[in-house]
Protein backbone atom coordinates (compact mmCIF):
# COMPACT_ATOMS: atom_id res chain seq x y z
CA UNK A 1 0.00 0.00 0.00
CA UNK A 2 2.09 2.87 -1.34
CA UNK A 3 -0.30 5.64 -0.45
CA UNK A 4 -1.60 4.76 2.99
CA UNK A 5 -0.19 6.11 6.19
CA UNK A 6 2.55 4.12 7.94
CA UNK A 7 2.52 3.21 11.63
CA UNK A 8 4.37 6.42 12.50
CA UNK A 9 1.84 8.58 10.73
CA UNK A 10 3.83 9.33 7.61
CA UNK A 11 2.95 9.30 3.93
CA UNK A 12 6.43 9.00 2.46
CA UNK A 13 8.31 11.91 3.98
CA UNK A 14 5.17 13.87 4.88
CA UNK A 15 2.87 13.72 7.88
CA UNK A 16 3.84 12.82 11.44
CA UNK A 17 2.78 14.60 14.60
CA UNK A 18 4.73 17.81 15.17
CA UNK A 19 3.04 19.00 18.31
CA UNK A 20 4.09 20.51 21.62
CA UNK A 21 4.03 18.16 24.60
CA UNK A 22 0.86 19.80 25.94
CA UNK A 23 -1.06 18.37 22.97
CA UNK A 24 0.61 14.98 23.00
CA UNK A 25 -1.81 13.17 25.35
CA UNK A 26 -4.89 14.36 23.39
CA UNK A 27 -3.46 13.33 20.05
CA UNK A 28 -2.02 10.10 21.42
CA UNK A 29 -5.37 9.11 22.95
CA UNK A 30 -6.95 9.62 19.56
CA UNK A 31 -4.19 7.73 17.76
CA UNK A 32 -4.52 4.75 20.05
CA UNK A 33 -8.28 4.56 19.70
CA UNK A 34 -9.37 5.72 16.28
CA UNK A 35 -8.82 2.59 14.23
CA UNK A 36 -10.31 0.21 16.76
CA UNK A 37 -13.38 2.42 17.23
CA UNK A 38 -13.86 2.98 13.50
CA UNK A 39 -13.61 -0.76 12.92
CA UNK A 40 -16.24 -1.65 15.54
CA UNK A 41 -19.32 -3.06 13.79
CA UNK A 42 -21.63 -0.94 15.97
CA UNK A 43 -19.74 2.21 14.94
CA UNK A 44 -19.92 1.29 11.29
CA UNK A 45 -23.63 0.57 11.52
CA UNK A 46 -24.37 3.87 13.24
CA UNK A 47 -22.13 5.83 10.86
CA UNK A 48 -23.68 4.24 7.76
CA UNK A 49 -27.21 4.80 9.05
CA UNK A 50 -26.62 8.49 9.72
CA UNK A 51 -24.92 8.96 6.35
CA UNK A 52 -27.97 7.42 4.71
CA UNK A 53 -30.87 8.83 6.73
CA UNK A 54 -29.45 12.15 7.87
CA UNK A 55 -26.87 13.21 5.27
CA UNK A 56 -28.82 11.75 2.36
CA UNK A 57 -26.23 9.31 1.01
CA UNK A 58 -25.51 7.81 -1.36
CA UNK A 59 -25.23 11.07 -3.27
CA UNK A 60 -26.02 10.69 -6.98
CA UNK A 61 -23.36 10.15 -9.61
CA UNK A 62 -24.94 12.25 -12.29
CA UNK A 63 -24.10 11.91 -15.98
CA UNK A 64 -23.79 15.51 -17.19
CA UNK A 65 -25.05 15.21 -20.74
CA UNK A 66 -24.58 18.76 -21.98
CA UNK A 67 -21.26 19.27 -20.25
CA UNK A 68 -20.10 15.99 -21.82
CA UNK A 69 -21.07 17.22 -25.26
CA UNK A 70 -19.22 20.49 -24.69
CA UNK A 71 -15.97 18.79 -23.59
CA UNK A 72 -16.25 15.63 -25.71
CA UNK A 73 -15.90 13.13 -22.88
CA UNK A 74 -18.24 11.21 -20.58
CA UNK A 75 -18.46 13.54 -17.61
CA UNK A 76 -20.05 12.50 -14.36
CA UNK A 77 -20.64 14.77 -11.39
CA UNK A 78 -20.41 13.27 -7.92
CA UNK A 79 -23.11 15.26 -6.19
CA UNK A 80 -21.63 15.96 -2.75
CA UNK A 81 -23.38 19.32 -3.04
CA UNK A 82 -26.60 17.43 -2.25
CA UNK A 83 -25.39 16.36 1.19
CA UNK A 84 -27.23 17.85 4.16
CA UNK A 85 -25.66 21.28 4.92
CA UNK A 86 -24.54 21.58 1.31
CA UNK A 87 -21.10 20.02 1.15
CA UNK A 88 -19.07 16.88 1.76
CA UNK A 89 -17.81 18.29 5.08
CA UNK A 90 -20.56 16.56 7.05
CA UNK A 91 -19.27 13.05 6.18
CA UNK A 92 -16.29 13.79 8.41
CA UNK A 93 -18.11 15.61 11.21
CA UNK A 94 -20.58 12.72 11.60
CA UNK A 95 -17.68 10.27 11.83
CA UNK A 96 -15.70 12.36 14.30
CA UNK A 97 -18.60 13.15 16.61
CA UNK A 98 -19.47 9.45 16.88
CA UNK A 99 -15.82 8.81 17.69
CA UNK A 100 -15.75 11.62 20.25
CA UNK A 101 -18.81 10.21 22.01
CA UNK A 102 -17.25 6.77 22.20
CA UNK A 103 -14.13 8.35 23.72
CA UNK A 104 -16.30 9.95 26.39
CA UNK A 105 -15.76 13.54 25.25
CA UNK A 106 -18.34 16.12 26.25
CA UNK A 107 -17.37 19.17 24.23
CA UNK A 108 -16.50 19.80 20.62
CA UNK A 109 -14.31 22.49 19.12
CA UNK A 110 -13.65 23.17 15.45
CA UNK A 111 -12.02 25.71 13.17
CA UNK A 112 -13.66 27.04 10.05
CA UNK A 113 -12.72 29.23 7.11
CA UNK A 114 -15.73 29.89 4.90
CA UNK A 115 -17.96 28.40 7.55
CA UNK A 116 -18.89 25.12 5.81
CA UNK A 117 -17.00 22.91 8.24
CA UNK A 118 -18.21 25.06 11.11
CA UNK A 119 -21.81 24.60 10.02
CA UNK A 120 -21.29 20.85 9.54
CA UNK A 121 -19.80 20.64 13.04
CA UNK A 122 -22.53 22.78 14.64
CA UNK A 123 -25.08 20.56 12.90
CA UNK A 124 -23.79 17.26 14.29
CA UNK A 125 -23.34 18.81 17.74
CA UNK A 126 -27.01 19.82 17.69
CA UNK A 127 -27.86 16.31 16.52
CA UNK A 128 -25.93 14.74 19.40
CA UNK A 129 -26.70 17.39 22.02
CA UNK A 130 -23.04 18.30 22.49
CA UNK A 131 -21.49 21.62 23.41
CA UNK A 132 -19.94 23.26 20.34
CA UNK A 133 -17.38 26.05 19.97
CA UNK A 134 -16.22 27.10 16.51
CA UNK A 135 -13.20 29.34 15.92
CA UNK A 136 -13.43 31.55 12.87
CA UNK A 137 -11.16 34.36 11.73
CA UNK A 138 -12.66 37.77 12.37
CA UNK A 139 -12.20 38.65 8.70
CA UNK A 140 -14.00 35.46 7.60
CA UNK A 141 -16.83 36.17 10.06
CA UNK A 142 -17.33 39.51 8.38
CA UNK A 143 -17.19 37.93 4.90
CA UNK A 144 -19.41 34.94 5.67
CA UNK A 145 -22.14 36.39 7.84
CA UNK A 146 -24.89 33.90 6.86
CA UNK A 147 -22.77 30.91 7.90
CA UNK A 148 -21.96 32.58 11.23
CA UNK A 149 -25.66 32.93 11.89
CA UNK A 150 -26.36 29.37 10.73
CA UNK A 151 -23.91 28.11 13.35
CA UNK A 152 -25.50 30.30 16.01
CA UNK A 153 -29.00 29.13 15.11
CA UNK A 154 -27.71 25.58 15.53
CA UNK A 155 -26.57 26.48 19.04
CA UNK A 156 -22.84 26.80 18.50
CA UNK A 157 -20.70 29.49 20.00
CA UNK A 158 -18.66 31.21 17.29
CA UNK A 159 -15.43 32.70 18.61
CA UNK A 160 -13.59 35.24 16.46
CA UNK A 161 -9.88 34.57 15.93
CA UNK A 162 -8.20 37.95 16.05
CA UNK A 163 -4.58 36.86 15.82
CA UNK A 164 -2.48 36.96 12.64
CA UNK A 165 -4.44 37.80 9.52
CA UNK A 166 -7.69 36.64 11.13
CA UNK A 167 -8.52 33.88 8.62
CA UNK A 168 -8.57 30.05 8.56
CA UNK A 169 -4.93 29.56 9.56
CA UNK A 170 -5.43 31.72 12.62
CA UNK A 171 -8.73 30.05 13.49
CA UNK A 172 -6.85 26.72 13.42
CA UNK A 173 -4.18 28.15 15.74
CA UNK A 174 -6.87 29.31 18.16
CA UNK A 175 -8.63 25.94 18.12
CA UNK A 176 -5.33 24.21 18.89
CA UNK A 177 -4.72 26.63 21.77
CA UNK A 178 -8.20 25.91 23.11
CA UNK A 179 -7.42 22.19 22.97
CA UNK A 180 -4.15 22.70 24.84
CA UNK A 181 -6.08 24.51 27.56
CA UNK A 182 -8.91 21.93 27.72
CA UNK A 183 -7.24 18.57 27.32
CA UNK A 184 -9.53 16.07 28.97
CA UNK A 185 -13.18 16.61 28.06
CA UNK A 186 -12.84 18.15 24.59
CA UNK A 187 -12.49 16.69 21.11
CA UNK A 188 -11.18 18.83 18.29
CA UNK A 189 -12.94 18.09 14.97
CA UNK A 190 -10.46 19.16 12.30
CA UNK A 191 -12.25 19.77 9.02
CA UNK A 192 -9.64 18.74 6.50
CA UNK A 193 -6.96 16.12 5.94
CA UNK A 194 -4.46 18.30 7.79
CA UNK A 195 -3.16 18.38 11.36
CA UNK A 196 -1.09 15.86 13.31
CA UNK A 197 -1.42 12.12 12.74
CA UNK A 198 -4.01 10.54 13.00
CA UNK A 199 -6.16 13.38 11.65
CA UNK A 200 -5.18 13.17 7.97
CA UNK A 201 -5.80 9.42 7.91
CA UNK A 202 -8.97 9.60 10.01
CA UNK A 203 -10.56 12.38 7.95
CA UNK A 204 -9.57 10.57 4.74
CA UNK A 205 -11.29 7.41 5.95
CA UNK A 206 -14.48 9.27 6.81
CA UNK A 207 -14.48 10.96 3.40
CA UNK A 208 -13.58 7.76 1.54
CA UNK A 209 -17.29 6.97 1.26
CA UNK A 210 -17.20 9.30 -1.77
CA UNK A 211 -14.94 7.06 -3.87
CA UNK A 212 -16.57 3.92 -2.51
CA UNK A 213 -19.87 5.12 -3.93
CA UNK A 214 -18.31 6.34 -7.19
CA UNK A 215 -16.93 2.85 -7.81
CA UNK A 216 -20.27 1.14 -7.25
CA UNK A 217 -22.17 3.75 -9.25
CA UNK A 218 -19.77 3.59 -12.21
CA UNK A 219 -19.98 -0.19 -12.20
CA UNK A 220 -23.70 0.18 -12.62
CA UNK A 221 -23.63 3.00 -15.16
CA UNK A 222 -20.61 1.98 -17.25
CA UNK A 223 -20.11 -1.68 -16.37
CA UNK A 224 -16.66 -0.72 -15.08
CA UNK A 225 -15.88 0.69 -11.64
CA UNK A 226 -12.81 2.59 -12.84
CA UNK A 227 -13.06 6.04 -14.42
CA UNK A 228 -10.25 7.44 -16.55
CA UNK A 229 -10.09 10.62 -14.48
CA UNK A 230 -11.14 11.76 -11.04
CA UNK A 231 -10.98 15.53 -10.62
CA UNK A 232 -11.29 17.39 -7.32
CA UNK A 233 -10.36 20.77 -5.89
CA UNK A 234 -7.69 20.87 -3.19
CA UNK A 235 -7.51 23.39 -0.36
CA UNK A 236 -6.50 21.25 2.60
CA UNK A 237 -7.75 18.40 0.45
CA UNK A 238 -10.54 16.53 2.24
CA UNK A 239 -12.95 16.14 -0.65
CA UNK A 240 -10.10 15.16 -2.96
CA UNK A 241 -8.78 12.59 -0.46
CA UNK A 242 -12.25 11.06 -0.26
CA UNK A 243 -12.73 11.04 -4.03
CA UNK A 244 -9.29 9.48 -4.68
CA UNK A 245 -9.11 7.02 -1.82
CA UNK A 246 -10.42 3.81 -3.41
CA UNK A 247 -8.58 4.53 -6.67
CA UNK A 248 -5.15 5.29 -5.21
CA UNK A 249 -3.71 1.85 -5.88
CA UNK A 250 -5.28 1.63 -9.34
CA UNK A 251 -2.63 3.54 -11.21
CA UNK A 252 -4.55 3.51 -14.50
CA UNK A 253 -7.05 5.94 -12.96
CA UNK A 254 -5.75 9.47 -13.54
CA UNK A 255 -6.21 11.57 -10.43
CA UNK A 256 -6.27 15.32 -10.84
CA UNK A 257 -6.05 17.92 -8.06
CA UNK A 258 -7.05 21.50 -8.76
CA UNK A 259 -5.55 24.23 -6.61
CA UNK A 260 -6.63 27.84 -6.41
CA UNK A 261 -4.35 30.06 -8.45
CA UNK A 262 -6.13 33.17 -7.17
CA UNK A 263 -5.10 36.08 -9.33
CA UNK A 264 -2.47 33.89 -11.03
CA UNK A 265 0.14 31.45 -9.68
CA UNK A 266 2.90 34.06 -9.88
CA UNK A 267 0.78 37.05 -8.86
CA UNK A 268 1.69 36.85 -5.19
CA UNK A 269 -1.99 36.33 -4.48
CA UNK A 270 -2.70 32.64 -4.77
CA UNK A 271 -3.15 29.42 -2.83
CA UNK A 272 -1.39 27.07 -5.27
CA UNK A 273 0.61 25.18 -2.68
CA UNK A 274 2.18 22.49 -4.88
CA UNK A 275 3.39 25.17 -7.30
CA UNK A 276 4.71 27.55 -4.66
CA UNK A 277 5.25 25.56 -1.48
CA UNK A 278 8.25 23.91 0.10
CA UNK A 279 8.42 21.20 2.74
CA UNK A 280 7.63 22.63 6.14
CA UNK A 281 5.76 22.08 9.39
CA UNK A 282 2.43 23.68 10.21
CA UNK A 283 -0.51 22.67 12.39
CA UNK A 284 1.16 19.47 13.46
CA UNK A 285 2.32 17.89 10.24
CA UNK A 286 5.19 18.05 7.81
CA UNK A 287 3.82 18.91 4.41
CA UNK A 288 4.10 21.29 1.49
CA UNK A 289 3.68 24.81 2.75
CA UNK A 290 3.65 28.30 1.32
CA UNK A 291 6.30 30.10 3.32
CA UNK A 292 9.02 32.71 3.20
CA UNK A 293 12.70 31.81 2.94
CA UNK A 294 12.83 32.29 6.69
CA UNK A 295 10.12 29.71 7.36
CA UNK A 296 7.28 32.11 8.13
CA UNK A 297 3.93 30.98 6.77
CA UNK A 298 2.54 33.06 3.91
CA UNK A 299 -1.09 34.07 3.98
CA UNK A 300 -2.69 32.57 0.86
CA UNK A 301 -5.36 34.14 -1.31
CA UNK A 302 -8.27 32.74 -3.29
CA UNK A 303 -11.70 34.07 -4.18
CA UNK A 304 -12.89 30.83 -2.59
CA UNK A 305 -12.56 30.92 1.18
CA UNK A 306 -12.52 27.11 1.32
CA UNK A 307 -9.31 26.88 -0.73
CA UNK A 308 -7.62 29.70 1.14
CA UNK A 309 -5.10 27.59 3.12
CA UNK A 310 -1.29 27.87 2.97
CA UNK A 311 -0.66 24.10 2.97
CA UNK A 312 -2.15 20.84 1.77
CA UNK A 313 -2.69 17.63 3.67
CA UNK A 314 0.41 15.40 3.94
CA UNK A 315 -1.30 12.68 1.85
CA UNK A 316 -1.56 15.16 -1.01
CA UNK A 317 2.03 16.30 -0.56
CA UNK A 318 3.00 12.64 -0.96
CA UNK A 319 0.71 12.14 -3.96
CA UNK A 320 2.33 15.21 -5.55
CA UNK A 321 5.82 14.03 -4.67
CA UNK A 322 5.24 10.57 -6.18
CA UNK A 323 3.37 12.08 -9.13
CA UNK A 324 0.39 9.85 -8.41
CA UNK A 325 -1.82 12.93 -8.67
CA UNK A 326 -1.47 15.53 -11.36
CA UNK A 327 -1.87 18.96 -9.80
CA UNK A 328 -3.16 21.83 -11.90
CA UNK A 329 -4.56 25.18 -10.90
CA UNK A 330 -7.44 27.47 -11.79
CA UNK A 331 -7.55 31.21 -11.28
CA UNK A 332 -10.43 33.13 -9.69
CA UNK A 333 -11.70 34.01 -13.16
CA UNK A 334 -11.36 30.45 -14.47
CA UNK A 335 -13.37 29.18 -11.53
CA UNK A 336 -16.07 31.83 -11.71
CA UNK A 337 -16.52 31.23 -15.44
CA UNK A 338 -16.73 27.48 -14.85
CA UNK A 339 -19.30 28.07 -12.12
CA UNK A 340 -21.47 30.06 -14.51
CA UNK A 341 -20.93 27.47 -17.25
CA UNK A 342 -22.07 24.62 -15.02
CA UNK A 343 -25.07 26.67 -13.93
CA UNK A 344 -26.06 27.28 -17.56
CA UNK A 345 -25.36 23.82 -18.98
CA UNK A 346 -26.59 21.62 -16.14
CA UNK A 347 -28.68 23.85 -13.89
CA UNK A 348 -26.29 23.38 -10.99
CA UNK A 349 -24.72 26.38 -9.25
CA UNK A 350 -21.56 24.98 -7.67
CA UNK A 351 -19.64 26.20 -4.66
CA UNK A 352 -16.71 28.27 -5.91
CA UNK A 353 -14.34 25.66 -4.45
CA UNK A 354 -15.96 22.98 -6.63
CA UNK A 355 -16.05 25.35 -9.62
CA UNK A 356 -12.22 25.14 -9.58
CA UNK A 357 -12.54 21.41 -10.31
CA UNK A 358 -14.95 22.08 -13.17
CA UNK A 359 -12.54 24.70 -14.55
CA UNK A 360 -9.85 22.02 -14.91
CA UNK A 361 -11.85 20.29 -17.68
CA UNK A 362 -10.21 22.67 -20.15
CA UNK A 363 -6.77 21.42 -19.10
CA UNK A 364 -7.41 17.68 -19.54
CA UNK A 365 -6.45 15.88 -22.74
CA UNK A 366 -9.49 13.64 -22.90
CA UNK A 367 -10.75 11.22 -25.54
CA UNK A 368 -14.48 10.98 -26.30
CA UNK A 369 -14.62 7.56 -24.61
CA UNK A 370 -12.94 8.76 -21.42
CA UNK A 371 -14.98 8.65 -18.26
CA UNK A 372 -14.31 11.73 -16.12
CA UNK A 373 -15.67 12.07 -12.60
CA UNK A 374 -15.71 15.56 -11.11
CA UNK A 375 -16.24 15.69 -7.40
CA UNK A 376 -18.77 18.46 -6.94
CA UNK A 377 -17.93 19.00 -3.30
CA UNK A 378 -20.43 21.73 -2.44
CA UNK A 379 -23.28 23.86 -3.64
CA UNK A 380 -23.13 27.53 -4.47
CA UNK A 381 -25.81 28.98 -2.21
CA UNK A 382 -23.21 30.22 0.27
CA UNK A 383 -21.34 31.94 -2.58
CA UNK A 384 -24.19 33.93 -4.03
CA UNK A 385 -22.66 37.20 -2.79
CA UNK A 386 -19.39 36.38 -4.55
CA UNK A 387 -21.16 35.46 -7.79
CA UNK A 388 -23.11 38.72 -7.60
CA UNK A 389 -19.99 40.78 -6.93
CA UNK A 390 -18.15 39.07 -9.80
CA UNK A 391 -21.14 39.97 -11.90
CA UNK A 392 -20.23 38.56 -15.33
CA UNK A 393 -23.32 36.49 -16.02
Amino acid at each position, binding site marked *: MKYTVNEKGFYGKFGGA*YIPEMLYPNVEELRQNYTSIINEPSFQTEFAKLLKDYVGRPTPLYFAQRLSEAYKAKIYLKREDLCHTGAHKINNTIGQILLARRMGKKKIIAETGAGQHGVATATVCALMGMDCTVYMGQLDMDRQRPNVERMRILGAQVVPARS*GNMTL*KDATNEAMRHW*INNPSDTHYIIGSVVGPHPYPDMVTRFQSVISEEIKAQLQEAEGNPFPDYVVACVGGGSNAAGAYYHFLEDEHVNLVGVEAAGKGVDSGESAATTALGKTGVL*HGSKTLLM*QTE*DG*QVIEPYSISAGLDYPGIGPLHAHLFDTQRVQFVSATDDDAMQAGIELSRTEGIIPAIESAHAVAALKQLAVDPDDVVVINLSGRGDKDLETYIRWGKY
Partner: protein
Amino acid sequence: MSRLKQLFQDKKNNILSVFYTAGFPKLNDTVEIARHLQSGGADIIEIGIPFSDPVADGPTIQASNKVALDNGMTVKLLLEQVKEIRKDVNIPIVLMGYLNPVLQYGFEKFCKEAAANGVDGLILPDMPLDEFNEHKDLTSSLGLDVIFLVSPTTSAERINMIDGLSSGFVYAVSSSSTTGAKKGFTADQEQYFQKLKSANLKNPFLIGFGISDHATFSKASEYGSGAIVGSAFINLLQESSNFGKDISQFVESLKSKS
Protein backbone atom coordinates in the same frame (compact mmCIF):
# COMPACT_ATOMS: atom_id res chain seq x y z
CA MET B 1 31.42 20.93 30.64
CA SER B 2 28.61 22.93 29.06
CA ARG B 3 27.59 26.23 30.62
CA LEU B 4 24.19 24.75 31.49
CA LYS B 5 25.67 21.68 33.20
CA GLN B 6 28.11 23.89 35.08
CA LEU B 7 25.29 26.16 36.26
CA PHE B 8 23.15 23.30 37.55
CA GLN B 9 26.18 21.77 39.25
CA ASP B 10 27.05 25.00 41.01
CA LYS B 11 23.55 26.09 41.86
CA LYS B 12 20.82 23.74 43.02
CA ASN B 13 18.03 26.16 43.67
CA ASN B 14 16.34 29.41 42.70
CA ILE B 15 17.68 29.33 39.17
CA LEU B 16 15.96 31.98 37.14
CA SER B 17 15.64 31.60 33.39
CA VAL B 18 14.15 34.56 31.56
CA PHE B 19 12.49 34.23 28.16
CA TYR B 20 12.02 36.96 25.62
CA THR B 21 11.33 37.14 21.92
CA ALA B 22 14.19 38.08 19.61
CA GLY B 23 13.66 41.35 17.79
CA PHE B 24 11.14 42.67 20.32
CA PRO B 25 10.17 45.40 21.06
CA LYS B 26 12.74 46.75 18.59
CA LEU B 27 14.77 44.70 16.14
CA ASN B 28 18.13 45.17 17.86
CA ASP B 29 16.93 45.15 21.47
CA THR B 30 17.82 41.44 21.65
CA VAL B 31 21.44 42.23 22.55
CA GLU B 32 20.84 44.96 25.10
CA ILE B 33 18.17 42.95 26.93
CA ALA B 34 20.58 40.02 27.29
CA ARG B 35 23.27 42.26 28.82
CA HIS B 36 20.81 43.69 31.32
CA LEU B 37 19.57 40.23 32.25
CA GLN B 38 23.08 39.12 33.09
CA SER B 39 23.89 42.23 35.10
CA GLY B 40 20.49 42.07 36.79
CA GLY B 41 21.18 38.57 38.07
CA ALA B 42 19.30 36.18 35.76
CA ASP B 43 20.87 32.72 35.52
CA ILE B 44 19.79 31.65 32.02
CA ILE B 45 18.77 33.67 28.98
CA GLU B 46 16.14 32.06 26.78
CA ILE B 47 15.63 33.78 23.45
CA GLY B 48 12.55 33.01 21.36
CA ILE B 49 12.80 32.60 17.60
CA PRO B 50 9.69 34.36 16.31
CA PHE B 51 7.22 32.38 14.20
CA SER B 52 4.08 33.34 12.30
CA ASP B 53 1.97 30.62 13.93
CA PRO B 54 2.92 30.12 17.60
CA VAL B 55 0.22 27.60 18.60
CA ALA B 56 1.53 26.92 22.09
CA ASP B 57 1.61 30.58 23.07
CA GLY B 58 -0.92 32.82 24.72
CA PRO B 59 -1.73 36.38 23.60
CA THR B 60 1.35 38.12 25.11
CA ILE B 61 4.00 36.02 23.36
CA GLN B 62 1.91 35.78 20.18
CA ALA B 63 1.86 39.57 19.98
CA SER B 64 5.62 39.81 20.58
CA ASN B 65 6.20 37.31 17.75
CA LYS B 66 4.16 39.44 15.39
CA VAL B 67 5.96 42.64 16.36
CA ALA B 68 9.34 40.95 15.95
CA LEU B 69 8.46 39.62 12.49
CA ASP B 70 7.09 43.00 11.45
CA ASN B 71 10.41 44.47 12.64
CA GLY B 72 12.14 42.16 10.16
CA MET B 73 13.50 39.57 12.59
CA THR B 74 15.06 36.49 10.98
CA VAL B 75 16.91 33.37 12.13
CA LYS B 76 20.08 34.63 10.47
CA LEU B 77 19.92 37.94 12.31
CA LEU B 78 19.25 36.19 15.61
CA LEU B 79 22.40 34.09 15.22
CA GLU B 80 24.39 37.28 14.57
CA GLN B 81 22.85 38.90 17.64
CA VAL B 82 23.84 35.91 19.77
CA LYS B 83 27.42 36.34 18.60
CA GLU B 84 27.25 39.96 19.67
CA ILE B 85 25.72 39.03 23.04
CA ARG B 86 28.49 36.52 23.68
CA LYS B 87 31.11 39.27 23.60
CA ASP B 88 30.20 40.22 27.15
CA VAL B 89 27.60 37.78 28.41
CA ASN B 90 28.77 34.55 30.04
CA ILE B 91 25.59 32.99 31.41
CA PRO B 92 23.93 30.17 29.43
CA ILE B 93 21.93 31.10 26.35
CA VAL B 94 19.11 28.87 25.13
CA LEU B 95 17.21 29.39 21.88
CA MET B 96 13.57 28.39 21.87
CA GLY B 97 11.28 28.24 18.88
CA TYR B 98 8.98 26.33 16.59
CA LEU B 99 10.59 23.87 14.26
CA ASN B 100 9.71 25.32 10.87
CA PRO B 101 12.04 28.37 10.78
CA VAL B 102 14.88 26.10 11.93
CA LEU B 103 14.09 23.52 9.23
CA GLN B 104 14.07 26.19 6.54
CA TYR B 105 17.40 27.54 7.74
CA GLY B 106 18.68 23.97 7.65
CA PHE B 107 18.78 21.99 10.89
CA GLU B 108 22.45 21.14 10.68
CA LYS B 109 23.52 24.60 9.57
CA PHE B 110 21.44 26.14 12.34
CA CYS B 111 22.95 23.93 15.03
CA LYS B 112 26.51 24.46 13.84
CA GLU B 113 26.20 28.24 13.66
CA ALA B 114 24.29 28.42 16.95
CA ALA B 115 26.99 26.44 18.73
CA ALA B 116 29.78 28.44 17.09
CA ASN B 117 28.16 31.73 18.10
CA GLY B 118 27.77 30.73 21.72
CA VAL B 119 24.36 29.10 22.11
CA ASP B 120 24.26 26.45 24.84
CA GLY B 121 20.89 24.84 24.40
CA LEU B 122 17.84 24.45 22.17
CA ILE B 123 14.16 24.08 22.96
CA LEU B 124 12.03 23.13 19.95
CA PRO B 125 8.66 22.23 21.48
CA ASP B 126 7.10 20.81 18.31
CA MET B 127 10.05 18.62 17.35
CA PRO B 128 8.96 14.98 17.80
CA LEU B 129 11.25 12.78 19.89
CA ASP B 130 11.63 10.40 16.95
CA GLU B 131 12.86 13.17 14.75
CA PHE B 132 15.36 14.33 17.36
CA ASN B 133 16.83 10.83 17.46
CA GLU B 134 18.09 11.49 13.93
CA HIS B 135 19.86 14.67 15.06
CA LYS B 136 21.15 13.54 18.44
CA ASP B 137 24.67 12.79 17.32
CA LEU B 138 24.95 16.18 15.67
CA THR B 139 23.80 18.22 18.68
CA SER B 140 25.86 16.26 21.16
CA SER B 141 28.99 16.53 19.01
CA LEU B 142 28.45 20.30 18.97
CA GLY B 143 27.96 20.42 22.72
CA LEU B 144 24.42 21.73 22.35
CA ASP B 145 22.04 20.72 25.09
CA VAL B 146 18.55 19.90 23.84
CA ILE B 147 15.73 20.47 26.29
CA PHE B 148 12.30 18.84 26.02
CA LEU B 149 9.02 19.71 27.70
CA VAL B 150 6.92 17.65 30.07
CA SER B 151 3.39 18.64 31.06
CA PRO B 152 0.96 17.57 33.81
CA THR B 153 -0.62 15.09 31.41
CA THR B 154 2.68 13.46 30.39
CA SER B 155 2.75 9.84 31.59
CA ALA B 156 5.45 8.63 33.97
CA GLU B 157 6.84 6.37 31.28
CA ARG B 158 7.05 9.22 28.82
CA ILE B 159 8.63 11.53 31.41
CA ASN B 160 11.45 9.02 31.70
CA MET B 161 11.86 8.86 27.96
CA ILE B 162 11.91 12.66 27.67
CA ASP B 163 14.36 12.95 30.54
CA GLY B 164 16.57 10.37 28.82
CA LEU B 165 16.68 12.38 25.60
CA SER B 166 17.06 15.79 27.24
CA SER B 167 20.30 17.28 28.42
CA GLY B 168 20.95 20.43 30.43
CA PHE B 169 17.54 20.44 32.04
CA VAL B 170 13.91 19.36 31.55
CA TYR B 171 11.30 22.07 30.99
CA ALA B 172 8.30 21.32 33.19
CA VAL B 173 5.20 23.10 31.89
CA SER B 174 3.21 23.98 35.01
CA SER B 175 -0.30 23.43 33.66
CA SER B 176 -2.15 22.17 30.61
CA SER B 177 -2.21 25.54 28.96
CA THR B 178 -0.63 27.92 26.54
CA THR B 179 1.97 30.38 27.82
CA GLY B 180 0.90 33.28 29.98
CA ALA B 181 0.76 34.67 33.47
CA LYS B 182 -1.67 33.07 35.92
CA LYS B 183 -2.40 33.58 39.58
CA GLY B 184 -0.66 31.06 41.80
CA PHE B 185 -0.61 27.26 41.65
CA THR B 186 -3.37 24.81 42.48
CA ALA B 187 -2.97 21.77 44.72
CA ASP B 188 -3.03 19.56 41.60
CA GLN B 189 -0.14 21.49 40.10
CA GLU B 190 1.91 21.16 43.28
CA GLN B 191 1.18 17.46 43.33
CA TYR B 192 2.53 17.21 39.80
CA PHE B 193 5.67 19.18 40.77
CA GLN B 194 6.15 16.80 43.70
CA LYS B 195 5.79 13.84 41.35
CA LEU B 196 8.57 15.26 39.17
CA LYS B 197 10.74 15.98 42.19
CA SER B 198 10.33 12.40 43.39
CA ALA B 199 10.92 10.89 39.96
CA ASN B 200 14.71 11.01 40.28
CA LEU B 201 15.23 12.43 36.83
CA LYS B 202 18.75 12.40 35.48
CA ASN B 203 18.33 16.09 34.61
CA PRO B 204 17.36 18.97 36.85
CA PHE B 205 14.05 20.56 35.94
CA LEU B 206 12.84 24.13 35.68
CA ILE B 207 9.16 25.03 35.91
CA GLY B 208 7.68 27.35 33.32
CA PHE B 209 4.28 28.79 32.24
CA GLY B 210 2.42 30.93 34.74
CA ILE B 211 5.50 32.19 36.64
CA SER B 212 5.04 35.91 37.12
CA ASP B 213 6.14 37.02 40.58
CA HIS B 214 8.14 36.14 43.66
CA ALA B 215 5.40 33.90 45.05
CA THR B 216 5.15 31.68 41.98
CA PHE B 217 8.92 31.72 41.44
CA SER B 218 9.75 30.65 44.98
CA LYS B 219 6.99 28.04 45.04
CA ALA B 220 8.31 26.56 41.79
CA SER B 221 11.82 26.57 43.27
CA GLU B 222 10.66 24.46 46.21
CA TYR B 223 10.15 21.61 43.77
CA GLY B 224 12.38 22.26 40.78
CA SER B 225 15.82 23.83 40.50
CA GLY B 226 14.14 27.06 39.59
CA ALA B 227 11.72 28.54 37.11
CA ILE B 228 11.28 30.18 33.74
CA VAL B 229 9.48 33.46 33.30
CA GLY B 230 8.28 34.62 29.90
CA SER B 231 5.02 36.49 29.36
CA ALA B 232 5.45 38.66 32.49
CA PHE B 233 8.86 39.75 31.21
CA ILE B 234 7.51 40.44 27.70
CA ASN B 235 4.86 42.67 29.29
CA LEU B 236 7.60 44.53 31.14
CA LEU B 237 9.63 45.05 27.96
CA GLN B 238 6.54 46.30 26.20
CA GLU B 239 6.08 49.01 28.80
CA SER B 240 9.65 49.81 29.75
CA SER B 241 11.36 53.04 28.79
CA ASN B 242 14.51 52.18 30.72
CA PHE B 243 15.64 48.59 30.21
CA GLY B 244 18.64 48.86 32.56
CA LYS B 245 16.63 49.93 35.57
CA ASP B 246 13.43 47.98 34.86
CA ILE B 247 15.10 44.67 34.02
CA SER B 248 17.25 44.59 37.15
CA GLN B 249 14.24 45.55 39.27
CA PHE B 250 12.18 42.81 37.62
CA VAL B 251 14.81 40.14 38.24
CA GLU B 252 15.25 41.35 41.81
CA SER B 253 11.50 41.30 42.45
CA LEU B 254 11.24 37.69 41.31
CA LYS B 255 14.17 36.47 43.34
CA SER B 256 13.49 38.21 46.61
CA LYS B 257 10.43 39.10 48.57
CA SER B 258 9.66 42.78 48.32
